[in-house]
């Protein structure tokens, strides 16, 4: 048992598996803090994962692939925002529609663009980073160093997100819009604009999570390769009480449960019970083991400006 926890791979896998959850969870935090429930993150991740490969292969640069994925993710998010915010459509139905669409369109494009052999094997991958100094520390180096660049990017974004949301005027306004849009509007805040901002940020961050899966972890796209991570990210965000660090912590917990289930499979425990671990943790998180979490008051409620 002890050697499992002393195995640096357990902790490295935790971080690697947490990243594609943490990025959309951070995105969801922005979106929901502004009052829009964005369950389309799963679909945005999937579309972004696909276009990351398309752009990376077409340009020969993984970074341009990453950028292309973000732009595509942003466009889908803006379409979602237009319908959800400007046209006050039902956000859940809209989100589901985008997710179904994403699954169909990516499978279709994959076959028409690349044929049944799948995406080209010479697609470039985002670099992995060895942190000088930390790299040579035993254990810690193996845990923290040598990850995809997206993992480190996620950590930087985490700190920026927290600062933005809780220490800037714009962040305060964004939160105000999600709590009480009428009051915010009375105070002269443009509710619609800020909700667009919240959704746009969730699109960008989900797209990064999707691109991480396709060109960060490997260099190819498989249909439905996001495997519901956009939804688990929502759970992480709720468990994290709609805060960046909370979401990250929850993502780490889910990542840890996955990594641990991989390590424990070769021990005496029943494989089937071990494989349920990540899901048990998710359910426990959602039924409120971590204390009561309160959503922003106007979360999911469309708003029509009172002009």
């Amino acid at each position, binding site marked *: 048992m002890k050697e499992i926890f002393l*195995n*640096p*791979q*357990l902790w*490295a*896998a935790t971080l*690697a*598996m947490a990243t*594609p959850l943490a990025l959309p969870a951070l995105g969801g935090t922005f979106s929901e803090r502004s009052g829009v429930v964005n369950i389309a993150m799963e679909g945005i991740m999937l579309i972004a994962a696909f276009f990351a490969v398309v752009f990376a292969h077409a340009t020969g640069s993984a970074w341009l692939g990453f950028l292309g994925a973000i732009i595509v993710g942003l466009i889908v998010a803006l379409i979602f925002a237009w*319908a959800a915010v*400007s*046209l006050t*459509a039902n956000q859940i139905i*809209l989100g589901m*529609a985008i997710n*179904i*669409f994403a*699954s*169909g*369109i990516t*499978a*279709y494009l*994959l*076959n*028409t663009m*690349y044929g*049944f*052999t*799948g995406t080209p*094997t010479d697609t470039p991958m985002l670099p*992995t980073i060895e942190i000088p100094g930390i790299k040579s520390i035993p254990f810690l180096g193996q845990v923290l160093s040598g990850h995809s660049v997206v993992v480190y990017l996620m950590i930087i974004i985490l700190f920026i997100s927290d600062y933005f949301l809780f220490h800037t005027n714009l962040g305060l306004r964004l939160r105000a819009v999600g709590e009480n849009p009428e009051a915010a509007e009375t105070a002269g805040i443009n509710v619609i604009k800020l909700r667009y901002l919240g959704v746009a940020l969730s699109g960008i961050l989900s797209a990064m999570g999707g691109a991480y*899966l396709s060109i960060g*972890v*490997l*260099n*190819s796209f*498989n*249909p*439905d*390769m996001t*495997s519901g991570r956009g939804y688990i990210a929502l759970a992480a965000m709720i468990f994290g009480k709609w805060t960046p660090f909370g979401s990250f912590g929850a993502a780490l917990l889910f990542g840890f449960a*996955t*990594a641990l289930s*991989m*390590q424990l*499979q*070769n021990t005496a425990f029943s*494989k*089937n019970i071990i*494989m349920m671990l990540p899901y048990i943790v998710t359910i426990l998180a959602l039924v409120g083991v971590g204390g009561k979490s309160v959503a922003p008051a106007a979360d999911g409620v469309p708003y029509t400006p009172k002009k």
Partner: protein
Amino acid sequence: MKRWRVVLASLLIVVLSVSVLLSGCSSKTKQESTQPQTTTQEAKNKDFKVGLVTDVGGINDRSFNQMAYEGLQRAAKELGVTVNVIQSKQMTDYVPNLTNFAQQGYDLVISVGFMMHDATEEVSQKFPDTKFLIIDSEITDRPNVASAMFKEQEVGYLAGALAGLVEKEKVGKVKGTNIIGAVGGMQIPPVDRFIAGYQQGAKAVNPDIKILINYTNNFNDPASGKQMALTQISQGAEIVFQVAGGTGEGVVKAAQEKNLYAIGVDADQSYLAPDNVLTSAVKRVDVAVYDVIKDALNGNFKSGIMYFDLKNNGVGLGKINKDVPQSIIDQVNQLAKDIIDGKIQVSDKISK
């Protein structure tokens, strides 16, 4: 505002119906074969319609479903039959997808995979005039269902023996921890037959070898496949056999990053990472699909079970890595011969 909402609603409906359609038949128009129709034989073949329903892995899984699709493509090209594919998005799609083909009067409907057993049983009963082929699962009590079964354990045995010998003689990138691994998708019989053979083959040539066996519980999540393989590598494994469809691509990637070996499955996956794929345990699903289409076309459709094994080239090793010396290849070939001759019996059960 109101007008826009109507526009949005209509847009949503259109987009959704299109995407549901798109995710299904992706290749209908492509295969309407381009050959000129001159003789009546060709016209008759063209009237013969074959529908293939993939499992959730989809035809781009670079393994199982892709092989089935290749067989279908070959039938379209060489026999001139009309073919169509529906890719299942989730397990609940199996019954509607099979029904869809049967209702449209397809002559032969192919279910790709063990997981479609129940769906195939159900639909084949409702459409007794339609012929069905199921891969990897036994349905014996229907006159209109043929089952293609593979002896995965035989090729698994060869892959295991190769891995065992490579470990024993410390070939190429291997340092000789004498630990190898297998990453399965789900714990289902066709996956376990591969792993059972792998285990026996490795133990036969290298009795002290340790074999790690794990499952990711999915066939289309390469990110988890990669971490699973990295976990085994951290536990000392130097060769990882992937039996996980699309998930397995992550396994190959992990071996490539750590500069160790992976063993591919179903299709010859050497091209994914030529330096790091030791070999592939190839399962000729394409041959099974093609043969059954041909038989059905010529009126020779037989219900019941067909076996594909080493003897009839239904399974076999793929391209072997250039690091492997000829002496090891010879030993593996000898084992293959012994299996064909019945001197070695390979069990299809994993031992503890």
